[in-house]
């Protein structure tokens, strides 16, 4: 029964989504997809409570296995409910090609849920890459505009580059003899364990948009806002962090991998946090902050603070989904997502403004909202491990307050009459605004705001204890002093941002130049190499073949000429020669042979005449001849013997 619920949870959205997308059922799309997402949400709660494990044979002796444990029991319902809320929002916002949009969203959600529940490496990789492919299609949803499709291509190619890590990891697991069950990977033989850990680490960093892969997330903001709200807050990016949390025993077992993970997470939180502070576009700011916040999750994975990391992941999912949806609502209504055009927008649509403010304050780390507590749970683990790591993490936390503050200041800023023209000049600059935010768009924000406010409980006593116990760990808790200090610092930074405008350095605006660097170091050289190889293939390799064919042809021509000139003329010469011989022999025939024959005949005739002479017919002459012959005969007989 529980197993059936688990199968249904992943199959229902996959099948319904596939049908919606393939058959473009635009009219039925909203109703069908929202009821499917609702059912999926209910099923996710059922499996979170019952914790089933199911499997069917898949390939190479490994199963397609799904299972829910404490970690996935937290994350699966998060993914399912954010999907539902985003679909409701998108029903109010996007009216074209709803079959394709909602179908792809459900397919994506199914892949995300399989990723969460996967128990073996092939299962994980399957879902992992399908997430990537559907994200390509969703980011490039408005396919008539080239830059949006390009953004989808960038997202898919970058994350797939990182996914290669999982292929290598699978090979290492096979070689290392531990099999492909995720739970067994940490017990792979020593040498292969390092390869495995490296592969998993790269794959996780790529999906989680950590350094150096962060740039794809910036490009991905070309996608529709509901897509960003699902993919870039609760699911795909978050699941990069989730993979590392799940693989924490492997990272620890490999030795070097755990601290590396922690440091990459901390540095991403710091540096991409600074990038977020420097953004002028609301969605770019949110994207950078996603990458930075996932840095805390990745850091937690490296520190072995799975409960803190998971709580941060879930709390961030609700917080960031809300902010992306709010930015989307404003973009639809005003036609801009430039911060310069969003001044005072919270005052115009109060509900959107207030819910976004709750999420913004949570993001800033203001007590007692969600991210304040979850982030401090991660930092507490960092403090135990290394002071340097804690310092970087703390600075990154202060930066979160700065970028969240920057957004909050803009949306609440009362526009003076003198600046009104400047602000209004941004309206409709990206798309025609509708000037309207509907109820379907508002309702999901309320639910998400509750999550953004209270999910900090996941790390605070008493719920926090239960969560940690369920995950089988006893994490260090942030002391009251740490919690207080971080809350105060958040408020201080917010005040600072309110008081003075933040700097916007160029390196931050261009996301550390990573996109350009990738173009220069990877993309252009690859294309150049491809062009050169294609030239080589056509001009050199193929011409060797055609060349040897034409050599064969010319050889055969020469042979033909030899045939004509030498062999044939030889034959002719031979025949001429034989003709001449024949002629000569005919003269010879006349002159010599015939003469010889006639000479012989004459001689024989002479002999004949001579032979006739003794035949005289006189008997006595015959007797004498007989005696002579006899005498000669006797003589011969005597002498020879």
């Amino acid at each position, binding site marked *: 029964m529980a197993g059936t619920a688990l199968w249904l949870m992943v199959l229902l959205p996959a099948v319904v989504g596939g049908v919606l997308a393939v058959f473009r059922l635009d009219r039925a799309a909203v109703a069908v997809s929202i009821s499917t997402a609702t059912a999926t949400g209910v099923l996710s709660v059922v499996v979170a409570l019952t914790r089933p494990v199911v499997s069917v044979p898949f390939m190479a002796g490994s199963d397609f296995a799904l299972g829910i444990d404490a970690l996935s029991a937290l994350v699966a319902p998060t993914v399912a409910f954010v999907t539902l809320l985003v679909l409701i929002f998108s029903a109010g916002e996007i009216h074209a090609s709803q079959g394709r949009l909602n179908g792809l969203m459900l397919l994506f959600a199914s892949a995300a849920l399989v990723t969460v529940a996967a128990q073996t490496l092939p299962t994980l990789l399957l879902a992992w890459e*399908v997430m990537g492919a559907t994200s390509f*299609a969703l980011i490039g949803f408005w396919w*008539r505009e080239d830059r949006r499709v390009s953004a989808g291509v960038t997202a898919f190619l970058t994350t797939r580059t990182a996914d290669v890590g999982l292929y290598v990891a*699978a*090979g290492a697991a096979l070689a290392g*003899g531990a099999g492909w069950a995720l739970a067994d990977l940490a017990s792979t033989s020593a040498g292969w364990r390092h390869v495995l850990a490296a592969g998993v680490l790269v794959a996780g960093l790529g999906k989680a948009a950590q350094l150096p892969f962060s740039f794809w997330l910036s490009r991905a903001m070309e996608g529709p806002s509901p897509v960003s709200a699902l993919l870039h807050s609760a699911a795909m990016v978050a699941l990069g962090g989730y993979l590392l949390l799940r693989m924490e025993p492997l990272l620890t077992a490999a030795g070097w991998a755990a601290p590396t993970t922690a440091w990459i997470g901390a540095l991403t939180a710091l540096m991409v946090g600074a990038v977020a502070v420097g953004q002028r576009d609301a969605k770019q700011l949110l994207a950078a902050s996603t990458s930075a916040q996932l840095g805390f999750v990745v850091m937690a994975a490296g520190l072995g603070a799975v409960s803190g990391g998971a709580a941060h992941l879930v709390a961030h999912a609700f917080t960031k989904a809300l902010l992306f949806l709010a930015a989307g609502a404003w973009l639809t209504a005003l036609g801009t997502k430039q911060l310069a055009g969003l001044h005072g927008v919270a005052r115009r649509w109060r509900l959107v403004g207030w819910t976004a403010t709750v999420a913004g304050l949570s993001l800033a780390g203001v007590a007692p909202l969600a991210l304040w507590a979850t982030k401090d749970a991660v930092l507490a683990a960092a403090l135990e491990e290394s002071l340097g790591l804690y310092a970087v993490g703390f600075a990154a936390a202060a930066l979160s307050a700065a970028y969240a503050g920057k957004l909050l200041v803009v949306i609440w800023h009362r526009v003076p009459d003198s600046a009104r023209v400047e602000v209004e000049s941004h309206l409709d600059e990206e798309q025609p605004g509708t000037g309207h935010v509907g109820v379907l768009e508002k309702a999901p924000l309320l639910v998400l705001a509750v999550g953004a406010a209270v999910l900090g409980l996941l790390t605070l006593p008493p719920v926090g204890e239960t969560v940690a116990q369920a995950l089988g760990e006893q994490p260090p808790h942030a002391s009251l002093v740490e919690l207080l200090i971080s809350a105060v610092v958040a408020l201080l930074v917010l005040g600072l941002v309110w008081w003075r405008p933040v700097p916007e350095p160029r390196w931050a605006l261009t996301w550390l130049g990573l996109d350009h660097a990738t173009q220069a170091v990877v993309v252009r050289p690859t294309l150049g190499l491809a062009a050169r190889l294609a030239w080589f*293939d056509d001009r050199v390799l193929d011409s060797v073949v055609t060349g040897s064919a034409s050599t064969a042809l010319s050889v055969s021509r020469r042979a033909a000429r030899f045939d004509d000139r030498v062999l044939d003329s030889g034959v002719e010469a031979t025949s001429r020669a034989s003709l001449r011989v024949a002629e000569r022999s005919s003269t010879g025939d006349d002159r010599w042979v015939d003469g010889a024959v006639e000479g012989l005949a004459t001689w024989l005739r002479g002999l004949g005449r001579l032979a006739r002479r003794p035949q005289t017919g006189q008997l006595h002459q015959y007797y004498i001849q007989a005696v002579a012959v006899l005498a000669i005969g006797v003589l011969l007989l005597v002498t020879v013997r």
Partner: protein
Amino acid sequence: MLSLIVFLPLAAALALAALPRLGDAAARWAWVGVAAVDLALVVVVWLQYESPATGELALEEQAEWIPGVNSSYHLGVDGLSLPLIAMTGVIFLACAVYALRETDRPRLQAALFLFLQSVSMGLFVAADLILFFLFFDLSIVGMYFVIAGWGRQGAGRSALKFFLYTFLGSLALLAGFIGLYVAADPHTFDMVALTEQTPLAGSSLAGGLVLAAILFGLAVKTPTVPFHTWLPPAHTDAPAVGSAVLAGVLLKMGTYGFVRIAMPMLPEAWRGWAWVMIAVGVVSVIYGALVSLAQENLKRMIAYTSVNHMGYIVLAVGAAGLVAGDTAEARSVAVTGAVTQMVSHGIITAALFLLAGVLHDRAATYDMAAYGGLAAPAPRFAALFAVGAFASLGLPGLSGFIAEFQVFTGSIAAAPVTAVALLGILVTAALFLRALQGILTGETRGSSVGFTDLRPAELWSVGSLLLLSLLIGVLPRPLLEVIEPAARAVVELVGR
């Protein structure tokens, strides 16, 4: 049963050729009917099939043929050949359905393709080298006439190049077969007997030379770098159904030869040549992908991805020759992946070539730059092309992943350096996404304007191929259960 599968299409071909009065429509439907019946027979065989013991075949048929050289009419199937005859049946049926709209001498075309179907089926079930060689050569002859007779203007040259090049390869193959015959004691061309005997075991020079001849012959047909240059022009000039059969079925004759002939009959030489095969495989994977990335002609691009995809197979069978104590499991995973890849590449690439044929049918060009925004006038084409492209780049959930994942993991476990071939899946991803973007998305322009979407015959033929790829991708067990015992047997035989 196997004889029926092999000769039913030939009988139909002769009948079609002998009935000049037959109407075009009747000829087209007769082709579809015969192809469907032949596929149904293959399904029956599949249901009856039980994996034979190592080195043996199931459903054998044997009759005296050329007793003077110990060559008999010997047929049989195992887990290597059964998936391939099923794939052959599917691809020919899809081509028959696609060709329901053919207007150029449909009766003769149907007869020629039915002949090719007989030849292809025959090759995959042949258990005698002379029989194998006969079908191998006849396939070249048949395909020559397809390209020369139904190809684009001036296809004669490409057809001739294809014919001469692959014919040269087949001569090398024959030389190798004769080498095996001479070395066997008693002399025989029977595959089962040769596999059991492993002639030339212990004589590394002669074994190496015979293997070299066989490998050259198979490498030309497969094709691997550097013997692949006949492939792009042949595809560019061939008609859509011709390309589908050429890439889908004929290329597999080369790769099938590796696992059916070279590995089990010359295990010692194969082990000696394993690193060469791995190197050729890796180069084919990366080189094929990169050259493909630079193409502007869609058909040439798909043709070069075939070089890439065949490279995975060569890589895997090469890695299977690296015999070491504890990697037998990994090597059989690699061989399973290789055989799965033969099936998967067949159906996916056939689908892609049929779709390319639609482009040529509507706008008479394969030049990708001539299109743009095609998704607007032709959403069904766009959807199928996107699925085909993702299948070909190895997206999980489709058959290519099942094949490539096993090829990679098995090869990496046997020889870690083969991980470098993973670059291939990145480059193929890049090139297919680039093609998708260039042809389907953006403003509708150039030849895309007024483009007619897929017609039912095209939709059904391509759609069912891709649906099969999806089925294998999601539910691979029925296929893998047939392949896995055979792959283990190959690994066992090559380890002798």
